[in-house]
């Protein structure tokens, strides 16, 4: 698979901090990519470089196999920033048309696509309403439509579900899948881990401007697994003593066991089988991304970084 986006040693330093410090990774075409990190990790700065808003201090960006050229490639990118908004006094239809034309669509093309998307997301009756009359969720939907309207190759969504009710969040999620299936690559920036686990193929975790994790969700989970297994028995014996594992947790008949080094899951099963107990279920417990995230980020000064005094350096 060809990468749509390759970042090589990107750096962007501000006077007081290293916002993006030597970051490299690549994103495959058609994948859904998660860019994770605590507040102030440098995600927005990185995305602004990918969208051509900022120039990197050093490093290079390759877009679709060629050196990234912000002026021309920008129309192949759709960016929904976290700090987003619309012209409040403009009518919704005009607003969508304006933003689509700015992305290089002709008026007739833009109209056609707006009609398609408005119909799809049940927004047809909104055309003559003003943005200031919309609820937060409604304007979020409009914002999403204006981001993807020009069928960009790369769609960047920064916290796309904030402010959406579960119904609309699902609607947008389905559209994201649909866009991905039709060949668009999606970068998804968030700190909501459960969404990432559900949606993303590939993630990168940033902290303090640096990349600290890179891989597919299952790879990362494997990497951080602690050899824990959940086992459910018909009854729990009073005294469990095995060289192969320790009991990490017990809730009624369900046990969480941690396998010691040099043993396998089979050793656990064997132990309970020998005791003539009925095993109702047995499964590996992988850490959630949330746990991995907290483990990696906690203890660094990530949370305080945003409030550092200006004269820190």
């Amino acid at each position: 698979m060809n990468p749509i986006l390759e970042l090589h040693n990107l750096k962007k330093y501000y006077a007081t901090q290293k916002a993006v410090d030597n970051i490299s990774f690549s994103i495959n075409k058609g994948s859904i990519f998660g860019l994770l990190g605590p507040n102030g990790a440098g995600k927005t700065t990185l995305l602004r470089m990918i969208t051509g808003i900022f120039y990197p201090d050093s490093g290079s960006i390759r877009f679709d196999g060629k050196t990234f050229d912000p002026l021309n490639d920008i129309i192949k990118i759709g960016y929904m920033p976290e700090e987003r908004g619309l012209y409040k006094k403009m009518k919704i239809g005009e607003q969508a048309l304006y933003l689509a034309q700015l992305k290089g669509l002709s008026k007739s093309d833009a109209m056609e696509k707006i009609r398609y998307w408005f119909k799809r997301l049940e927004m047809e009756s909104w055309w003559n309403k003003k943005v200031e009359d919309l609820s937060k969720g409604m304007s979020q939907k409009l914002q999403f439509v204006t981001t993807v309207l020009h069928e960009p190759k790369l769609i960047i969504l920064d916290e796309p579900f904030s402010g959406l009710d579960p119904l609309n969040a699902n609607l947008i999620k389905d559209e994201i899948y649909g866009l991905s299936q039709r060949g668009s690559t999606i970068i998804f920036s968030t700190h909501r881990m459960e969404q990432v686990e559900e949606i993303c193929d590939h993630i990168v975790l940033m902290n303090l401007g640096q990349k600290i994790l890179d891989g597919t969700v299952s790879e990362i989970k494997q990497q951080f697994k602690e050899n824990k297994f959940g086992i459910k028995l018909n009854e729990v014996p009073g005294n469990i003593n095995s060289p192969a594992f320790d009991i990490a947790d017990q809730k009624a008949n369900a046990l969480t066991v941690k396998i010691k080094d040099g043993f396998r899951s089979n050793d656990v099963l064997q132990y309970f089988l020998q005791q003539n107990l009925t095993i109702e279920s047995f499964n590996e417990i992988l850490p959630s991304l949330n746990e991995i995230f907290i483990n990696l980020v906690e203890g660094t000064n990530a949370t305080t970084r945003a409030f550092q005094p200006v004269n820190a350096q």
Partner: protein
Amino acid sequence: MNKTILIIQREYLTRVKNKRFVLTTILMPLLIVALIAGSTYLSIKGKDEHKIAVIDSNGFFKGNIKNSKEILFEFPESVDTSNYLNKGFTDIIVIPKFDGTEKTSYILRSKKRISIMTEEAIAERINTAIEDNMLQNAGIDKMQLDSIHSQSRFAELKAVEESESGGNAKESNAALSYGIGFGSGMLIYITMFIYGAMVMRGVMEEKTNRIAEVMVSSVKPFQLMSGKIIGIGAVGLTQFLMWIVLIIGLFTAAQAFIPHDVMEQVKNLQQANSQMPGGSMSVVKAGDAAQQIYKVQHTFSTANWPVIIGLFVFYFLGGYLFYAALFAAVGSVVNEDPQDAQSLMLPITMPIIFSFIIMTNAVQDPSTPIAVWASIIPFSSPMVMMARIAYGIPGTVPYWQLAASMLSLVGGFIFTTWLSGKIYRTGILMYGKKVSWKEMGKWAFRRN
């Protein structure tokens, strides 16, 4: 389509389609005309009528003092300061006996306060009467005196400007030059504030609405800024154009109310004067009204309108572009707090106000060194140069000064736009932080 053009289009159309724009554009000229007509009407009709009883111990005022509609002197018997109101007079003057060799004061008593104008008129009438009386005593009879009075008002000052090329001398009119200079300088002053603030508010709106980042992911910040500035400038020009059309329309409509025979006389006066430039007006028979209309028309025709209007458009646009860019830069660094905008605007509004003060002086005395320099430096040139241009090119404003002024204004707005573009680019994406002047300077002068 070019993105900047799309932005200009949006900025222009959303404002021009706005009801408020239509209203102010139509109402403003009506308001101005109503203001002029109203104040003229009041100055004509608003005068108090005074019926003044004169207690004259000398006895020579009767028959010598001039009466008019507003001020009527009467010499009644048995009226004194205690009963003049009851006898139907509004004021009473008591003139003590004097022989005309020393200053005397007479006392004017009134029911209500009289205006300065009326006071002056009364004093002048009395003094004229005394003067006449002295002249008569010196041996000039009444007939001679009356004919001197009627003939001595014929002198009329006609200022003529020497042209440098030795061609025809041009008639000039200081009052008209003053009016045009002050009017156009004032107009530029007001519009600079109105449209500059409009640019600033537009930028602030984009920033606080959080649409700025959405926009700059599609267009360059510089395109966004210049599109807004040009769009709003076009709104300003549209407004001017509509005002000019409306004002011309209103005056044409007003002319329809002038009786036909008066217009005929005005035409005769025009013809007579074009055959005999500088000739006396009394050659052609014409009524008072026609003479007045002809005078106004003639005065207006002494100004070089195409040059003045052309330069006005140039200086309006140049001044607007110069300051609008700075206003945009301020708008981009302001956060939600409008108080910030106030303090950041100060360094921009100060030179504008200062230029206005220079302009009010330059319009009275267009050739002082400060007026000359202020009309060349781009900070103040739009207003000050307009004040000077009305006095004539190249008489008052030599060509080299005009060229220097225009070039430096063009250079000036290119510089402010470049400078503001750099501040704007960073400022528009900064939230929640108060930006200092030092930081803005850093953004403006760093590379890339």
